[in-house]
């Protein structure tokens, strides 16, 4: 109810549209609306395959859009993910703490700044969609390891595959941060159990291997077009800078963005989370998982991310690690809140509510305080211009459009050499220099501008005739490189530049086009697994998992007296 009360109005206001990546996801979804079984999208990068990005959330947006249009479909899917997160956090927390603490943890997830930051500022639908599915899978994973229940194996496997279909990175790193603590918990619990409930270490290892093989094989098949693309075209592009890799101490402005805003009042609870997590034996694996994720989530503030991830450090972004860290901290936070409220009663409840509300409010407001695009503008006039008089026979790039690039791509029939999906880019002019989208070249300084110049120099090759500019910074380059301003749009805030002698665009990158069978696979299996996950979740399950109902939360006295401590 709390999740609906807080996030439904924000979704109805379509607040996530202001974020960095929301339009990107909607653009992918818009392609699935018309070409469910054909992942080849000619609108970006002179043609690219959408199999370069796990499809599940976008496919759900595409499906729901038949009812309420793309924008509201996105909001509906995102809201569903938020609701699912509260359930997932509760179920995951129940492995570690009692029902009351788990309830507080679930309630805290609704106010979690990291979640709101990803939803409303970053627009990371895939991450926020995959994490709840993953959290919901973990209790079944626990049951399978602990009790060897086959139904749990089935449920865990299907849910984990569905999570991978939404966001593969969540599963890869989630295994380390989330699954390892669960395995450790199983081993700890088993060693402390009565002989009839004991599970041998060998059995736990065997079950882990079995599930890993099963899930690994399923993911290999479900995302087969993705793996084939990755093997045929490994990501060799020059790393693109991302401020989440900055030191949040040396660059406090990024510390504010990637630490203060996402964590919010959770920062105040960190010492208590560490103390309580360390004091209770069964929470220690969880604490260690949180700690490592927390350190990695600090980006370049500590050397941990660089040491653990190696070259991947220069490719990954770290706000999602902070998100995972916060999710791992929630069960312990729930326990801390139980003790806090038991001790200080109403005062504690009021203080907690105020801090939670402030955290959520700041993270939500951050998309307005520090918007992804400095100016909010309508790209309808540009789409109209591109769609008329045969202008769409040629390709175009935008400059100064930010994330509106995706919005424009949804609305126009014309194709572009630019795009927002860095992992989908194959054109050498885009991958060689270390800049991201051409539309934001200037923010990547020399690498970004080198990339733009290389692309403009090869305009004839790509049928690139139009450059649509909303930032006069780029005008000198266009002028000296042989482009001429041919039109003005939107009250002269947008200019259109053209180049003479450019041949019309022709289909390109044919060798990268996935065959039809891959399209069928891509349109069937990921979505099919999400349907299967919905079905298997309703299979009845015997309740024997984790922290029992009669264990209730630990009292402060018990904890302090060391009754359950090591």
């Amino acid at each position: 109810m709390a999740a609906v009360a807080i996030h439904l109005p924000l979704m109805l206001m379509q607040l996530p549209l202001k974020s960095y990546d929301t339009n990107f996801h909607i653009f992918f979804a818009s392609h699935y609306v018309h070409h469910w079984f054909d992942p080849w999208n000619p609108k970006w990068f002179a043609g690219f395959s959408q199999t370069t990005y796990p499809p599940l959330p976008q496919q759900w947006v595409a499906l729901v859009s038949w009812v309420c249009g793309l924008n509201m479909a996105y909001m509906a899917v995102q809201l569903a993910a938020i609701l699912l997160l509260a359930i997932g956090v509760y179920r995951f927390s129940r492995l570690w703490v009692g029902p009351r603490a788990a309830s507080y943890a679930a309630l805290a997830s609704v106010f979690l700044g990291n979640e709101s930051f990803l939803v409303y500022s970053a627009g990371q639908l895939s991450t926020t969609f995959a994490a709840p599915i993953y959290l919901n899978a973990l209790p079944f994973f626990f049951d399978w390891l602990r009790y060897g229940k086959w139904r749990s194996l089935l449920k865990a496997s299907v849910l984990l595959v569905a999570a991978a279909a939404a966001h593969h990175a969540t599963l890869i790193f989630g295994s380390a941060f989330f699954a390892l603590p669960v395995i450790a918990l199983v081993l700890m619990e088993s060693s402390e159990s009565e002989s009839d409930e004991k599970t041998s270490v060998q059995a736990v290892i065997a079950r882990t291997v079995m599930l890993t093989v099963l899930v690994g094989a399923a993911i290999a098949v479900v995302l087969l077009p993705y793996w084939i693309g990755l093997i045929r075209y490994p990501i060799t592009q020059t790393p693109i800078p991302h401020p989440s890799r900055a030191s949040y101490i040396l660059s406090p402005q990024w510390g504010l963005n990637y630490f203060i805003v996402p964590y919010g009042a959770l920062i105040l609870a960190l010492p208590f989370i560490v103390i309580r997590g360390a004091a209770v034996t069964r929470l220690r694996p969880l604490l260690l998982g949180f700690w490592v994720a927390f350190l990695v989530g600090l980006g370049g503030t500590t050397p941990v991310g660089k040491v653990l991830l190696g070259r991947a450090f220069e490719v990954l972004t770290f706000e999602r690690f902070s998100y995972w860290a916060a999710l791992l901290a929630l069960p312990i936070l729930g326990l801390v809140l139980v003790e806090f409220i038991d001790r200080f009663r109403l005062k504690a409840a009021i203080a907690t509510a105020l801090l939670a509300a402030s955290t959520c409010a700041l993270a939500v407001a951050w998309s307005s305080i520090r918007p992804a695009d400095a100016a909010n503008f309508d790209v309808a006039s540009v789409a109209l211009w591109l769609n008329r008089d045969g202008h769409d026979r040629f390709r175009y790039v935008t400059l100064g459009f930010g994330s509106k690039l995706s919005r424009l791509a949804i609305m126009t029939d014309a194709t572009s050499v630019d795009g927002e999906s860095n992992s989908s880019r194959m054109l050498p002019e885009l991958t060689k220099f270390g800049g991201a989208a051409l539309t934001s070249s200037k923010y990547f300084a020399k690498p970004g501008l080198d990339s733009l110049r290389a692309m403009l120099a090869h305009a004839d090759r790509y049928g690139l005739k139009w450059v649509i500019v909303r930032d006069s910074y780029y005008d000198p380059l266009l002028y000296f490189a042989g482009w001429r301003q041919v039109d003005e749009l939107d009250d002269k805030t947008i200019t259109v530049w053209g180049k003479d002698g450019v041949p019309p665009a022709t289909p390109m990158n044919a060798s990268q086009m996935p065959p039809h069978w891959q399209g069928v696979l891509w349109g069937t299996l990921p979505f099919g697994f999400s349907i299967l996950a919905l079905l298997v979740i309703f299979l009845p399950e015997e309740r024997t998992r984790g922290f029992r109902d009669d264990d209730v939360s630990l009292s402060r006295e018990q904890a302090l007296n060391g009754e359950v401590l090591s």
Partner: protein
Amino acid sequence: MNKGRLLAAGIAVATLLLLVIGTMWPVTSAVAYAGGGQGDLLVAPSTPEAAANDLGTQIRLHAWDKAYSSLANKAEFTQDQFIHDLTGYALSLRTYATLDGFEVQPLHQTANDADMIMKLRWSTVVGTFEDKRNVHATRSGDHWAVNWPIVPEQHVPPQVIPVNYLRWDVITSGSGDDWGAQDVEAPHVRIVDMHPVNRADGVVVMGELLNEDVIPAYVSVRSTLLAKNGSVLDSEGSFDMISHTLLPKQVTPFVIRFPGVDLSDVASIRMQPLSVLVSASADPVIEVLNQQYNAPPGASLTGQLSNQSGQTVNVAHVISSFYDKNGQLIWVAGQYIDRALQPQTPVDFHISVPEDIARNVNTERTVVSTYVLGGSL
């Protein structure tokens, strides 16, 4: 201490330790975002090089307050003058340039004074440029501070400049937005010289293009290298190494680069000049003053540009052609001017010439193309 407290203490200490390590010895990406140094945690510099490095870092981060307050001679100018010295007094390439990197070269040092060269590499929308400053640092107590060699703004006395330049307007029958599809014959242009050379990074095709017509032309040149079997090796355009607007009877040099191609693989070269009728004017007129070829070593062409018109030229691009004693074109090079050209205010230019070519240079010719903000439609 029980295990729980020990673990909590261990996590806290290890976290603090990792934070200290990450701050004292930041990873590469963190250094880049901190402007090349240690960002906001700068301590008072104890050497002249450290003072210059800190200043470079602050300039890179656009931390103007800190950069200005760190200067030893800040009483000689205002913070605005300091900022404008770096970013230009009028809109120019400097205005939105980002400092890509910098070097500090010590020249001479005593106990209380030091002379250094600061080379600031700026990145702009049209490429990079280097700003070299001779800086003097002085010691004050236990720290050093830089004396910034400010270049003051030059003021031109109020005056009236008569404007009597030629101007051509074009009236088209269409909507005007598809300017390439015109209903008039294209201006007649001709390549009057073309010369391919093999360089370390590939083939360079250079030449000169003449507008033979009596109307202005917007021009570009495309070149295609063909192999011995007739296949296309590569096809490239002149991009920004040409003056695109040609008035009647004007000539522009051009350069087309083919990275990674060897001239020995090239059987023939197909040249495709392109011209389109456009509106044009002879204004602004830029005069090249004191042009001088400096023989090797360190061969270069230097001179000054003087804006003879009454409006500010925001960006100027100098393209120079170099000829041997037979009048054969042997090299074309160019430079963007990073400062705006104010009326009647000369600005230096400097174009380097490769040593192997410099020995054969006999004469040279320079053309200047200009960009004026808001004047391109």
